[in-house]
């Protein structure tokens, strides 16, 4: 802020600042009441018995249970699997869109965004219809004689993964597409005129320059998928149990608020760890690219 010589003006500026601060109070109040307080409440609840007494028993119970660790592994498997497939499918798609004429690219982007605008339940239902034993995909496969038996595509890990990739792909695509579109086309032309093949250009020019976008996309995929609930609950058919569905079952079926809270905290810790890892990796990548720029 500028230094004001006149004390009356300075007081005025301070008053205006207080006024601006007060404008955000209603929104901050709601977020505090309905987002921050609930998280704190989960921490409190994790130390309480059903009777409301202080205990660490919930932690002992949850952390010594094999189910918890298998839920943790399932959570990571689903997140990493989704991320890997998003990178494999999304990066080429982003490259094609970025290389297309703007009008075509905009039109195609609208189609890519369509699933983003459809309810998660609508999409989950669509996948159930497609992937069931007597669903469209199995009917096509057995009808054409490609497989003798219907494949188990849903109510298992495969189905859950398909649903999650479908949800995350547009969200992954957005930052990658933005990064690739911002690449100076002259760099690609220069690379071509120096005799690089398309593969070499993609590897040494396009991918390094869009690494930031791929990175952001990966963070988005990870943060979202760690807490995914609807997709595993429906497409997993009870057989796929990441932390989120474990939490729901512990709370709804077993009415064990304490253990559900401990699982919730585990989810938070996992998110924090992943966040820190990504930040560290980003710093590492940034440091390296500065290093090469100076070399």
């Amino acid at each position: 802020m500028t230094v004001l010589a006149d004390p009356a003006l300075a007081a005025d500026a301070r008053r205006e600042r207080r006024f601006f601060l007060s404008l955000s109070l209603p929104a901050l109040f709601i977020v505090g009441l309905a987002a921050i307080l609930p998280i704190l409440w989960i921490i409190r609840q994790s130390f309480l018995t059903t009777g409301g007494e202080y205990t660490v028993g919930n932690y002992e119970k949850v952390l010594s249970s094999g189910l918890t660790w298998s839920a943790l592994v399932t959570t990571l498997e689903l997140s990493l699997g989704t991320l890997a497939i998003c990178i494999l499918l999304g990066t080429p798609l982003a490259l094609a869109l970025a290389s297309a004429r703007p009008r075509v690219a905009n039109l195609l982007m609208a189609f890519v965004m369509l699933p983003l605008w459809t309810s998660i339940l609508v999409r989950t239902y669509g996948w159930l219809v497609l992937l069931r034993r007597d669903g469209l995909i199995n009917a096509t496969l057995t009808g054409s004689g490609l497989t003798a038996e219907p494949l188990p595509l849903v109510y298992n890990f495969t189905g859950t993964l398909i649903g999650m990739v479908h949800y995350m792909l547009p969200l992954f695509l957005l930052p990658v597409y933005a990064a690739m579109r911002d690449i100076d086309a002259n760099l690609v032309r220069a690379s071509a005129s120096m005799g690089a093949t398309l593969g070499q250009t993609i590897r040494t020019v396009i991918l390094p320059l869009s690494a930031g976008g791929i990175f952001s996309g990966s963070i988005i995929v990870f943060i979202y998928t760690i807490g995914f609930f609807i997709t595993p609950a429906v497409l997993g058919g009870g057989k796929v149990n990441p932390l989120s569905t474990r939490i729901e079952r512990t709370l709804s079926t077993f009415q064990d608020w304490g253990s559900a809270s401990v699982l919730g905290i585990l989810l938070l810790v996992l998110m924090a760890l992943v966040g820190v890892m990504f930040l560290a990796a980003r710093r590492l990548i940034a440091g390296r690219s500065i290093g090469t720029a100076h070399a």
Partner: protein
Amino acid sequence: MLEAYPDSRLARILLWSFCALVMAFLMLPTLVVVPLSFSASNLLEFPPRAYSLRWYETFFGSATWMAALRTSLILGTLTAMITVPLGLLAGISINRLGGKAAVTIQGVLLTPSIVPGILLAIGLFFVLAAQRLVGTLFGVLVGHVVLAIPVACIVLLPALARFDWNQVQAARSLGANWARAIGGIIIPQLQISLLSATLMAFLTSLDESVISIFVASGQNSTLPKLMFLSLRDQIDPTIAAISTLWTVIVVVVVLVVTLRQKS
């Protein structure tokens, strides 16, 4: 960008065929539901052998589904009505304060969009349970507003950044108080962004399922909660009819928002 490679036609054809497949993957589940909703059969046969409107009749004739639809529409409207003014005031505050204070406020307001829905849901459930408010419309509403606030902020902040604040300065120097400046200058000029924020807040509430699953119950069950429960138990084409209607509504809303923004 890749046209510099005249000899790579094969690679480009491969790339585009791959893209066509990925785009089909993205659109298929939304599209497959539409013909199914007009099926005359109880079974999920595809393509349907005969067509009818019976699943739409089932939906509109069911008291349970209609109650859920009503709840969802009321919640969406209330969410938008509460969120947009809050978001606008917070947006003005963030834009005018600048610096560390703005970054902090923005960070706090965006937390609900980063925290997994399941954690917000059980946390809110605990808080509401302590106040004996589980199952009330109020409980779900608070949850939806908190999810819609980040959405409204994301829509409104860029618009406020583009806004020419000298106009407010001029109005203030001519004696208008802040309420008058906001009502007379900011709101009329941000009309389009405010409309977008309203629709987005409405859609956020309409689409929200996890908080509803934990916090809503009985008469106050929302449409997504009921859809979730019936997807778990049995799947009949009624859901296809709801899904089709839903997709049509969302596509129309999004088209309105994007076309409005362009004109």
